[in-house]
């Protein structure tokens, strides 16, 4: 089994810088360009490999690229942006890659830039990732000195420039059009679509915004081919995935595994099962904008295309475990407080609806709620559903709420009948012990 993204990453937290990266086969994909591989060949290969966006949306990368105008009449410059604004709670996979192997992102961006004839790249990094920033800055400086950046690549006329942009907080920056506004030095509110960034993006120019993990895959696809890449996966989506687990399990952590690995394997074989004294109740498969999965879903292959829509979606692949000593209402309250705080305030349903949801859940936790409040919560899952809001933040916020109301209904009702949180004392003790 091959783990192309992480097989060389040091587990002691050290970084691979240029010399070590090149020794391990780094920047080898550039030799393909020298050998005559054209941008359209790279695009075709990425499409055939079945690469899908790793930021949570799972959109096929080849299809996304196909909307970018190409040829001599295409607007210039075009931009490629790495979305390293990893702020989805429970998600830490891009940090592992950027801290451990910063040159992998530089190489991925050069190749994506070449494929799209986009000569300028930005890495949009969340402001809190200081170690990633330091290492990426060093990698960029090394890549300039080695001539991978800033000079025509050997055998081509293509020259790529790359900049690191460290942001200053706010979850909404991860939304691609909000990210574009942030990069332009504006408030990070999302833009109306269409036009899509592929044609009208950064400073009005064609722009591809791509998750960090997605970009790490590209050099490996170019080096080893589409068939090899597809064979890494257990399903029809190509490649491996950075999976992770947090919560009360024996060994929280991250693992690069074939796409299509099940939650049960992750939980039992890799995370070592639940921690002492707690039992599994549910999980969010990929960040907090995904719906809960429960025991009966543990054997589903975790990928983008075969995930049953009635269950939910994979999201970022870094899962958060709900155990039986943690109150599901308190859990969801924490999520909704996050969303209410991080709403950019641009559209009314999100700005006004999310604080209302958080207040209703607080009332439940504190024993002030009635059964009418449960109906109100249900109604919000419809009022803030896709199509009612300007971007995906509020609909994402409704996914865990709606599924919690379905799977943990009795627990919600118990908060009303017992006039408070049945977990409050127990969970306080548990937290002191943890």
């Amino acid at each position: 089994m091959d783990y192309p993204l992480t097989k060389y990453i040091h587990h002691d937290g050290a970084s691979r810088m240029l010399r070590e990266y090149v020794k391990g086969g780094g920047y080898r994909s550039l030799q393909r360009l020298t050998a005559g591989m054209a941008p359209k060949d790279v695009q075709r290969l990425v499409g055939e490999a079945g690469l899908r966006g790793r930021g949570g949306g799972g959109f096929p990368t080849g299809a996304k690229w196909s909307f970018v105008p190409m040829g001599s009449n295409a607007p210039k410059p075009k931009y490629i942006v790495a979305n390293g604004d990893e702020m989805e709670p429970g998600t830490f996979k891009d940090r592992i890659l950027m801290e451990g192997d910063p040159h992998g992102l530089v190489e991925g961006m050069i190749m994506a830039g070449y494929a799209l004839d986009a000569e300028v790249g930005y890495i949009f990094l969340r402001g809190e990732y200081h170690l990633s920033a330091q290492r990426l800055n060093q990698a960029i400086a090394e890549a300039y000195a080695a001539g991978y950046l800033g000079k025509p690549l050997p055998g081509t006329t293509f020259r790529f420039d790359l900049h690191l942009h460290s942001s200053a907080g706010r979850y909404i920056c991860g939304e691609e059009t909000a990210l574009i506004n942030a990069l332009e030095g504006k408030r990070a509110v999302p833009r109306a679509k269409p036009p899509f960034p592929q044609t009208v993006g950064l400073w009005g120019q064609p722009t591809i915004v791509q998750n960090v993990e997605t970009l790490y895959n590209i050099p490996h696809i170019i080096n080893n081919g589409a068939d090899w890449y597809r064979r890494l996966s257990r399903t029809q989506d190509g490649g491996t995935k950075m999976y992770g687990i947090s919560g009360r399990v024996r060994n929280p952590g991250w693992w690069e595994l074939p796409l299509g690995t099940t939650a049960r394997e992750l939980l039992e074989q890799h995370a070592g099962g639940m921690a002492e004294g707690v039992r599994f109740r549910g999980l969010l498969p990929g960040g907090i904008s995904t719906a809960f999965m429960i025991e009966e879903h543990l054997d589903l292959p975790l990928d983008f295309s075969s995930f049953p829509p009635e269950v939910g979606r994979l999201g970022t692949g870094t899962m958060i475990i709900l155990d039986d000593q943690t109150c599901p209402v308190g859990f969801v309250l924490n999520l909704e407080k996050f969303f209410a705080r991080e709403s950019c305030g641009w559209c009314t349903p999100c700005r006004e609806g999310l604080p209302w949801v958080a207040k209703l859940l607080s009332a439940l936790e504190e024993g002030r709620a009635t059964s009418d409040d449960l109906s109100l919560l249900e109604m919000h899952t419809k009022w803030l559903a896709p199509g009612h809001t300007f971007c995906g933040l509020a609909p994402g916020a409704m996914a865990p709420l709606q599924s919690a109301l379905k799977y943990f209904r009795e627990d919600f009702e118990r908060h009303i009948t017992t006039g408070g949180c049945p977990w409050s004392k127990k969970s306080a003790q548990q937290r002191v012990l943890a």
Partner: protein
Amino acid sequence: MLSDTEHRELEEAIKHYPDKRGAAIDALLTIQRHRGWISDDSLLDIAQFLEITAEDLDSIATFYNLVFRKPVGRHVAFVCDSISCWIKGCDQVQEQIKDLYDVDLGQTTADGRLTVLPIACLGHCERAPAMMIDHDVYGEVTPDKIDVLMDKYK
């Protein structure tokens, strides 16, 4: 007035963008690094440099939570309060900080040593609960470890 060093750093920042205001965040963070926070005067200095209005710049400065429009202490502790850290007891971490230093979220200690702020998921969920002090991230922060941890930040 921007100092020579500040001016030089802002000149460097704008090179990365086709348009000066692209560097707005970089400029705010750069000046904040030198001056601790963004006062109204600092805002005017930066706006003038970027050739945008101070009001326009303030709409950006007030949007991003890592830009401080109020003075902060010599050190800033960011306590992650997102879900993985909540499960593992971030509330107890916050309470311990409050007990030890008599400071609530959003406040600064009387001696100006420490400001405590909540922060969205720090991306260290596998080592929850996590907190960041200035630029340093710590995982598995249990309440009993806080005073030793804080010794480094006088």
